[in-house]
């Protein structure tokens, strides 16, 4: 193994995982103080907190792999959008509560399938983070899937809106399972699972939830964005502008 080639690949792979957690966590935190009920405010905020916690572990690890002395904060607050490697779905706006729930189900099921397999990664550090995160992710999916059942199998209005959100967000799910050279490299080294396996597990969860929620699975369509390579939708820039404002305006500020 050539370490000079391996290190940056692992760095980028860990960023993909960490950026997904961070961007989704930041999105969910936008609900704080705005959710339809106190319990949902707590549910979304708690999920956001877990995700940001996962991101901290992953980005700190990415910094160590990179070996240039950057810590979790510098990696989170001082990278531009082209350097963020989260899948595009994570940065999609919250929309109404139903749209947030649809996005959450799609990504919770993805993270669950991924983390379950990463627990047997050859990379001990990733395996440890995944073993920790998988327990939290089960809670997240129970929460989001529970709500999708109520919305999909609820009133005519909630059903129609949940179905619309599903149609709008579905195209972004293609990217989750589209293995590129980095994914294949990581899988060959036994660091990451094959995305085919992740997709099968994801399909099982999603088909079960959608059927029970009486929602129709949209057909897969070609897609344009490739956030995990740094090619994002227009929404990420705004999210980062808000998240990074303090560090950009007052470099090195701490509290």
């Amino acid at each position, binding site marked *: 193994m050539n370490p000079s080639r391996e290190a940056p690949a692992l760095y980028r792979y860990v960023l993909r995982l960490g950026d997904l957690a961070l961007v989704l*966590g930041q999105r969910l935190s936008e609900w704080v103080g705005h959710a339809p009920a106190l*319990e*949902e405010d*707590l*549910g979304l*905020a*708690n*999920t*956001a*907190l*877990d*995700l*940001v*916690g*996962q991101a*901290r*572990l992953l980005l700190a690890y990415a910094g160590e792999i990179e070996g240039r002395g950057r810590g979790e904060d510098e990696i989170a607050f001082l990278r531009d959008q082209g350097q963020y490697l989260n899948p595009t779905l994570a940065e999609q706006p919250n929309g109404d509560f139903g749209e947030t729930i649809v996005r959450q189900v799609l990504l919770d*099921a993805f993270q669950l399938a991924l983390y379950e397999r990463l627990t047997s990664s050859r990379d*001990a*550090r990733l*395996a*440890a*983070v995944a*073993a*920790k*995160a998988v*327990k*939290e992710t*089960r*809670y997240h*999916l*129970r*929460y989001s*899937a*529970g709500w999708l059942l109520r919305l999909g199998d609820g009133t005519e209005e909630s059903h129609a809106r949940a179905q619309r959100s599903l149609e709008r967000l579905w195209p972004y799910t293609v990217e989750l399972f589209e293995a590129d050279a980095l994914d294949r490299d990581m899988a060959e080294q036994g660091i990451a699972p094959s995305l085919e396996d992740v997709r099968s597990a994801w399909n099982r*969860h999603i088909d*079960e*939830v959608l059927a029970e929620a009486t929602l129709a699975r949209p057909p897969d369509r070609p897609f344009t964005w490739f956030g995990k390579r740094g090619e994002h939708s227009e929404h990420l820039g705004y999210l980062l502008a808000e998240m990074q404002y303090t560090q950009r305006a007052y470099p090195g500020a701490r509290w």
Partner: protein
Amino acid sequence: MSPVAAPSVMDAKGAARVQAAWRALGAVPDPELPALTLTDLGIVRSVNLRDDGTLEVGLSPTYTGCPATDHIAELARRALEDAGVGAFSVRPVLAPAWSSDWITVEGRRKLEEYGIVPPSPAASSARTWRGAAAGLIVPCPRCRSARTESISEFGSTPCKALHRCLDCLEPFERFKCI
């Protein structure tokens, strides 16, 4: 106490330091659940004496995003300093991941007294997206009624879920099972 060879002076001193560290950490209340100590919660994973004479204390975070994690490490450091255990370092231990199964019997008793339902075995937490509480009775800590319902899997801190008693109508908290 091992009945085998008498420990050397250094060993006895070292063992005393390890014990003192456990005692000190066993007296630190959790910032979110002050009725329980760090050892009750099972988050002190290890106290080891290294060859260079440093005591190495391993702490497991309960939840990755638990805002109290840094604070807990700070409280542990202060307690170890106050106890005068000598040179030490505190490091986070991720693997194996902390489980609510590690809360001690004493810790579970204190939780119950504090009005929080202790966690069921983590394995009872369903593997799928379906409700973990399905078929599981969570008795009300106030009136003992078995007729309760889940309000939310998420409560006031990352480690607790919200339930409600259908008899005395009081809401109550339950420690999440992870």
